């Protein structure tokens, strides 16, 4: 499944060649691909900042797949914030951005030739019963299907977090 971006790249290349062959013009196939390729480039450029969280999580952004999950913890919010950062740093995820004031964390999976990667937004909130909620949203950087990678990201994060509570 990690080979899907590679397949898409090859398919785009073949389509480009076919359109180029039948139209005889190079600018027509380029025009067809400029929107999706441009979107991917923009997403890769802005993915590392929490400032663009609303762009990635907007329901109007139909070219991305998002999966949301929520879990609770009895650890206080401030301590949980530091704990999650520690878990991320010791895991396969990359810590990209944090905001201690609003208790938000951004981490991601790496981009390479086989996968575009995903952004993971974590929001920590204190509940009325003094427990703490962790809102977890995993979003693709390009593509309306993550091929279960979003779900796998959450399961991997939860497994790492639970393991880390054995001290």
């Amino acid at each position: 499944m990690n080979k899907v971006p590679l397949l898409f790249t090859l398919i785009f290349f073949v389509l480009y060649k076919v359109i180029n062959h039948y139209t005889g013009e190079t600018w027509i196939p380029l025009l067809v691909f400029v929107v999706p390729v441009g979107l991917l480039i923009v997403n890769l450029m802005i993915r590392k900042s929490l400032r663009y969280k609303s762009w990635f999580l907007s329901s109007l952004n139909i070219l991305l797949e998002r999966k949301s999950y929520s879990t609770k913890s009895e650890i206080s919010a401030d301590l949980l914030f530091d704990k999650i950062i520690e878990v991320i740093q010791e895991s396969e995820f990359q810590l990209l951005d944090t905001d201690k004031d609003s208790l938000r964390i951004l981490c991601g999976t790496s981009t390479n030739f086989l996968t575009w990667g995903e952004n993971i937004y974590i929001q920590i909130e204190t509940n009325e019963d003094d427990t703490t909620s962790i809102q977890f949203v995993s979003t693709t950087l390009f593509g309306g299907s993550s091929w279960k990678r979003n779900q796998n990201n959450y399961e991997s994060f939860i497994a790492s977090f639970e393991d880390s509570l054995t001290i």
Partner: protein
Amino acid sequence: MAIVVNLDVMLAKRKMQVKELSAIVDVSVVNLSILKQSKAKAIRFSTLEAICKALDCQPGDILEFVDDTNT
């Protein structure tokens, strides 16, 4: 929580800060804080041994069972 961790009591008795204990036992301050608040899911024997060694105490000084079924 039925098992209460009295780490802060022992730290006060030994006049030691969490940071200092963290450096000695090689457990992060965050994890010691979670342990102090009795929010850890489990503790390894190696960690318990290191803490008891650093604080010169027994496991019973750190861990206490509180029967909370009647509360």
